[in-house]
């Protein structure tokens, strides 16, 4: 067996606890295989527990453990950093809790906060820079830490209560989606519920960045006066929140 084959057998043992793989690794390897298997699974479990403390608090330690084991069995890690491993756990939770959207939406919140925390640094656009902007052609650039999502449940107030150690509200499906922004101002991560229109406006801008395009889009929905006024108030809010880092 060459080195690559030997490493694949050890991978098969770690991922599947394959008896055939264990046998192929040779008699002298047997005593320690369980140690590596335990290290592998314990590390991934610990990673998920650390990444999703409020999900764990919400569904309970036992249900979280079952969900984590399911995820670990189905999704062996592949990235160079363990920080990437929590990325797909929300999808696993959505499958395991199809009638409880607040579970995977809590996971989205926790993941977005962690990603935003270590996103690339970017200086906010200074207000003085606006003086020379040609708004007809201006394209806005947003901070790389920005994450947006539309929630179908009251996951945000549940997350807020849990993270403050308060009793969380009962879960409920919302009649209209609630939208969230997560981003970092300097080194502090922010989370802000926004109305659906602002969320859609951000998605629109993230598609092509054009501010005049945003104005047209808002005018179509709100009429000329209200649409232009809304574009102005959104721009002011994003500048004040340090969401915008440049205008091209």
């Amino acid at each position: 067996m060459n080195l690559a084959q030997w490493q694949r057998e050890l991978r098969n043992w770690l991922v599947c606890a394959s008896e055939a793989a264990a046998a192929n690794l040779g008699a002298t390897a047997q005593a320690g295989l369980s140690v590596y298997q335990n290290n592998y699974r314990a590390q991934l479990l610990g990673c998920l527990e650390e990444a999703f403390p409020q999900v764990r608090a919400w569904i309970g330690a036992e249900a979280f453990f079952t969900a984590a084991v399911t995820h670990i069995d189905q999704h062996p890690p592949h990235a160079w950093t363990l920080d990437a491993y929590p990325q797909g756990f929300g999808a696993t939770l959505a499958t395991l809790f199809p009638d409880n959207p607040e579970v995977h939406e809590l996971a989205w919140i926790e993941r977005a906060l962690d990603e935003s925390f270590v996103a690339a640094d970017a200086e906010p656009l200074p207000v003085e820079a606006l003086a020379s902007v040609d708004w007809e052609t201006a394209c806005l650039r947003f901070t790389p830490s920005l994450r947006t999502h539309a929630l179908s449940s009251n996951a945000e107030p549940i997350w807020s209560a849990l993270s403050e150690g308060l009793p969380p509200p009962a879960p409920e499906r919302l009649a209209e989606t609630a939208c969230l922004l997560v981003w970092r101002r300097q080194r502090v991560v922010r989370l802000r519920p926004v109305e659906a229109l602002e969320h859609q406006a951000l998605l629109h801008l993230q598609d092509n960045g054009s501010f005049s395009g945003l104005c047209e889009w808002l005018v179509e929905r709100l009429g000329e006066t209200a649409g232009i006024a809304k574009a102005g108030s959104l721009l002011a809010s994003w500048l004040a929140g340090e969401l915008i880092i440049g205008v091209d």
Partner: protein
Amino acid sequence: MSTSPFSGYGLGLRKEHYQDFLETRIPVDFVEVISENFMVDGGQPRHILRQIRERYPVALHGVSMSVGSADGLDSAYLYRLKALVDEIEPLFVSDHLSWSRIDHFNSHDLLPVPYTDEALDLVCANISRAQDVLGRTLLFENPSSYLAFDGASMTEWEFIAAMSRRTGCELLLDVNNLFVSASNHNFDALAFLDGLPTDRVRQIHLAGHSQGKELLIDTHDSPVCAEVWALYTLAMARFGPLATMIERDDRIPPLADLLKELTIARTLGGLDGRACSRSGA
């Protein structure tokens, strides 16, 4: 392509102690951080590391280079590490003689390398490439091991000595790992020390371990035990002066407890690292 010689006594910096290190002058000669924790795009981790670097010499210790991987090195990983190295200008850059990656799978564990000629050729090629990319001599640590290999053609220390000789890399001797592996595989830790090239060992790690069901487990969650201190004294006598570090990764105690352990290291190693050093060192 050379690293500084003896650099004193340091601690592994963990987030539980960030504020202590930033708010007061902690009596250490350097700190060591896990490279991957800071190989992020930005935000608080990199900000803290910059602040720490302004106050203390920093060693970068990696866990994901995977020089034993039959797939070769991950270029994206290497260049991300290089960016961190270029910014921090660390005292040492180290990783492990281990592998974690094969066919798009990453175990995130320090898996052992078979001590064969094929593995030696591959490890040496990977180390040489890493040193070329990073533009400096790297240190590689002996990992704790829990399994042996049918078909091994050399001992661990023969493998490490050949690896160092062929690549010019330096060695980070983890005395606890040596103790754990020697116990688990029933070899003589002194033979291991005797087999290492005396001029290539640059740094020492000290840590604690736990007794598993059948094997010793490298948990890094307890104080250094008496046997490891004894082995450390012998290692310093043979290889010293060497930069020495207490490495705790779990059940992190108050900083004062780690500083007490570091005082023991200083006492055994000598303030200039020369009290126990071989003659003429």
